[in-house]
């Protein structure tokens, strides 16, 4: 771990910014270009960069595979869960208007939640795929 000093310092500087940018793309998706899928990929890329520079073992200590696996399921569950809630509140499946008192706020809340679901699943799947390939030799 002594070599690649420049790489490690730059990666340490960049990774927080990458994660922050992912969150910006995630939550600004309502107003500008972006959304859950792009944000998830960027977020996952942050973890993958970490694993490339500091080793897969260190990365799996941060993002433990069982937790990542739960996240894969959680995102999809959040997405379809929002649909079921809107069903229970008397709307059509994925009709966000019924989620709040005001239809506009309901739409806002709904799209925010399902994009979050997309983001979580995409990021977790990216990391899982990377771990699967990176850990192949040891398995």
């Amino acid at each position, binding site marked *: 771990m002594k070599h690649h000093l420049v790489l490690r310092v730059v990666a340490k500087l960049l990774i927080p910014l990458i994660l922050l940018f992912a969150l910006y793309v995630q939550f600004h998706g309502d107003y500008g270009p972006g959304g859950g899928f792009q944000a998830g990929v960027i977020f996952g890329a942050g973890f993958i960069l970490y694993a490339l520079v500091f080793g897969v073992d260190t990365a799996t200590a941060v993002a433990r595979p069982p937790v990542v*696996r*739960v996240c*894969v*399921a*959680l995102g*999809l*569950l959040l997405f*379809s*869960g929002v*649909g*079921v809630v809107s*069903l229970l509140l*008397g*709307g*059509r*499946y*994925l*009709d*966000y*208007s019924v989620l709040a008192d005001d239809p506009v706020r309901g739409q806002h809340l709904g799209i925010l939640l399902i994009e979050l679901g997309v983001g979580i699943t995409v990021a977790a799947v990216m990391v899982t795929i990377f771990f699967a390939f990176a850990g192949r030799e040891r398995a």
Partner: protein
Amino acid sequence: MIAQHLPALQVVVPLLSAPLCLLLNRARVAWLLSTAASWVALVIAVLLLQQVLATGTLSYELGGWAAPWGIEYRLDPVNAFVLVIVAGIGSVVMPFAATSVVHEIAAEHRVLFYTTYLLCLAGLLGIAITGDAFNLFVFLEISSLSSYIMISLGRDRRALTASYQYLIMGTIGATFILIGVGLLYMMTGTLNMLDLAQRIPSVADTRTVRVALAFLTVGISIKLALFPLHLWLPNAYVYAPSVVTAFLAATATKVAVYMLLRFLFTVFGAELSFEAMVMHLVLLPLALLAVFSASVVAIYQDNLKRMLAYSSVAQIGYIILGISFASVTGVTAGILHLFNHALMKGALFLALGCVFYRLGSVQLRDIAGLGRRMPWTFAAIVIGGLSLIGVPLTVGFISKWYLVLAALEGGLWWVAVLVLLGSLLAVAYIWRVVEVAFFQPAPRNAPSQEAPLTLLLPTWALIGANVYFGINTELTVGVAHRAAEWLIGGGG
């Protein structure tokens, strides 16, 4: 209140159960959940079919966005029937999975198997129920990707290459379908199938629309394994775990046939597909070639699963043959065989699953003399085989009857003769199994036990359906006929 949401729940129940399976992370719990989800899906499908038969079409606007802008789920007799087939097969296959999966799939992969099964079920049901051409492509990818994973779970390492081969072919097919949908979108500015059907006639004379039809037909033909685009199918069926083979053989290709029906008859309309584009001149020869080449190849197979896989290619030929007549009787025969073939192949692959459970092999030489040691399993294979041949009192006879009827109605008596000759080839490959299993002595170390009841009951449930729907044809023929009339009538 719940009744009006049934179309959405049809897809949502399995889709929501899939992540739950992964979260709970226990194979046993995942099995219970998958079985429950399949049964709920079947109940919903049956309720929807009843509703559609009573009142005509049903439409559900997802998210409250009106069609053609929003995604619409649209049910008519055709896809309501396909939903029942898919959910029905899932409900029978899942009880079988409990014992078979423990035997055939590695422990750490079992939860993943149930998760991908549920995703695949959701995808297949979604393809059938949606009224939106792009949404159909999305569901197609969901079901395809999960079926590649399910196939790769087979214990034999060749399952990986089989799955990879299917992945490549399937992706080419899906891409063709996407290009077709894209071209249609370019010409009409809409993705809703009903809206497409209304707008296409005004631009039907353009090369773009014709190319779109060609892309869609070829893409879907890869997915449904129409000769000569069937090369991915035998390996995928042979190396996949028994449950997966039974499920996919009975549902995946059937849903692809439904897509073909939907695009040829509803979206493009029979007039454009069959009069302007002479689709029958392409489909009819390919269907007959499929029947004969695949049946002949099936006769020479020593692996029983591979034999049945080639027989599937032949049977798909019969389905396409019915559709290529483009008449009400012909399409009735096609849809009828869609249902009936799902029953026979589901039953036969489950019976082979029983054989594999006891023997660890499905090679012809290994089953010598087992007919008496495993009487129930081999009786199931014999009845399923008779149904495949088309012997009276089984569903196979009903399909062949309507096929021959449709051929004679279209004045194509030579096709009727060829259908009967094709059945003789089925006699040949089924007889090989019967001969080895019943008339050859068993080796001394052959297993002497019948397959466990948990495997036999689902198998016999499907065998029972083969006989029941072979005698009481009111339901199946009635629905298939209405569906065919719906498609030929333009499905307004």
